[in-house]
Structures are given as C-alpha cells and as structure tokens.
C-alpha cells in the first residue's frame, strides 16, 4: 500500500508486550490527530490481534510478533503477524462467541471486536503457517 508514513515493530510474544504494542501504535498515529473514540477503538482492536498471537498463535511458547502500521490520508492500516499455529477454519474462528480455549475464560469475541471497531478486517491463516490480521480504519468521518 502507498503510504504517507509507515512503521514496523517486532517483539517477543509475551503478554507484557500487549500494552507496549498499543502505546507504540497510538504514538505512531498521533500526527493524524485521532479522536479519543478513534484511538480507543484502534488500540482495542490491535490489542485483540496481538493477544490472539500470544495466546493462540504461540500458546505461551517463544515467538515473535510483527506489527506493521501505515497511513495514507486518514486511512490507517494495521497488520499483526505471527508464525504460530495458524487457524484451520477462519470463518468459524471469526464467528461471535467461538473460542478454542473456553477453559481459559476466553469469550470468543476478539474478531467481533476487531470487526466492529475497525472498518475492514482481513484474516490470512492456515494450520501450521501462522496468522496475518490486516485491519483498516478511516479517521475523521
């Protein structure tokens, strides 16, 4: 994608880095002067994707998560990628309330939150091949 500005960060797949990823993306989009609502929605959606990579992608094992963010005009694109387990059935995974880990108090609402808080959600994944989540949001509506 053509962009006015872009960044990439990579970090260990540990839960401490969920807040780091939110803060980094929030700082990166700050020049666009997002509203509190827009910023909270972006941070929450990002948090869902990064958390999924930690919990489901690597399941507590060592691994690296890559977050790429760019914007063109007011259009923000965020890509979260892991080299973990991957998802066998993406359509099923995206269903509200579907979770493969109910015993860990997961509610199966992560993808739904991403879909509602962002304008567009694309999930590329295959079993054993890792997962790539791409989200877009138009600011200043």
């Amino acid at each position, binding site marked *: 994608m053509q962009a006015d500005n872009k960044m990439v960060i990579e970090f260990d797949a540990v*839960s*401490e880095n*969920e*807040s780091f990823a*939110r803060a980094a993306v929030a700082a990166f989009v700050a020049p666009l002067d997002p509203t509190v*609502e827009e910023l*909270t*929605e972006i*941070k*929450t959606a990002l*948090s*869902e994707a990064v*958390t999924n990579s*930690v*919990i489901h992608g690597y399941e507590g094992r060592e691994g690296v998560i890559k977050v790429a963010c760019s914007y063109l005009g007011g259009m923000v694109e965020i890509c979260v990628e892991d080299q973990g387990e991957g998802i066998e059935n993406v359509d099923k995974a995206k269903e*509200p*309330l579907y979770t493969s880990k109910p015993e*860990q*108090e*997961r*509610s*199966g*609402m*992560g993808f*739904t*939150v991403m879909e*509602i808080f962002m304008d567009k959600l694309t999930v590329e994944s295959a079993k054993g091949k890792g997962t790539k989540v791409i989200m877009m949001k138009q600011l200043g509506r």
Partner: protein
Amino acid sequence: MGTVYDFAGNILFVKIDGELDHHVTDGLRESVDRIFENKNMRHIIFDFSEVTLMDSSGIGFVMGRFKKTDEKGGKTFLVGTNPYVSKVLNMAGVFSIVKRCENREEAVRLTKMEVK
C-alpha cells in the same frame, strides 16, 4: 495506580484502573479469586470508573467472576464503565447477566435484594 480492594460484610469491592487486557486480567483473576475465597465473600462489586480501555479479555474476566459469585448465591455488579468498555461488554451481552450500576451505593443496595 493499582487495584484497590475493600470489604463490607460479604461484599468484595474491587477498583481497577488503567487498561484491562489479557496481561492484566491474568494477574487480577488470581488475586480476586484468592481474596474472594479466603475472606468468604459472596458478592463482588467492580468499580471500572478508572478503566480507560478493555478488550475481550475483560469479558471472560467479568463472566468468570460472575460464575464464582453465582456459585455462592451472590451477585456481580459493574460500576462506572465508560462507553468503550460498555460497548465491548454489550457485544457479548454481558449486561443481560451482570448488572451495571450508577454507583457503589446502588450496587450495595441490590446485593441486599434477594430476588430470584
């Protein structure tokens, strides 16, 4: 900063601040459950007025504590959820099970009402 715990009778008050995510809920779950069991509490009132952001980890966390109080015939209440936090909880229909209250006093009053 940090979580503040408080007690009144069989009610446990938990005031949380900051961003409620997977990392934070993992730590909180353990301490809330330990205090709830050790002090033999029956109800939990969560004060979310200082929670700025919450992702779906918060849904599982709230529903999990609801189950703990329900097992003891008690209730779980939420106070002070901001619009973003409320929106996430609403997506999962949490408010049809866990009641949202205006303030702590209202929640305390509701714990005393033994409605089936």
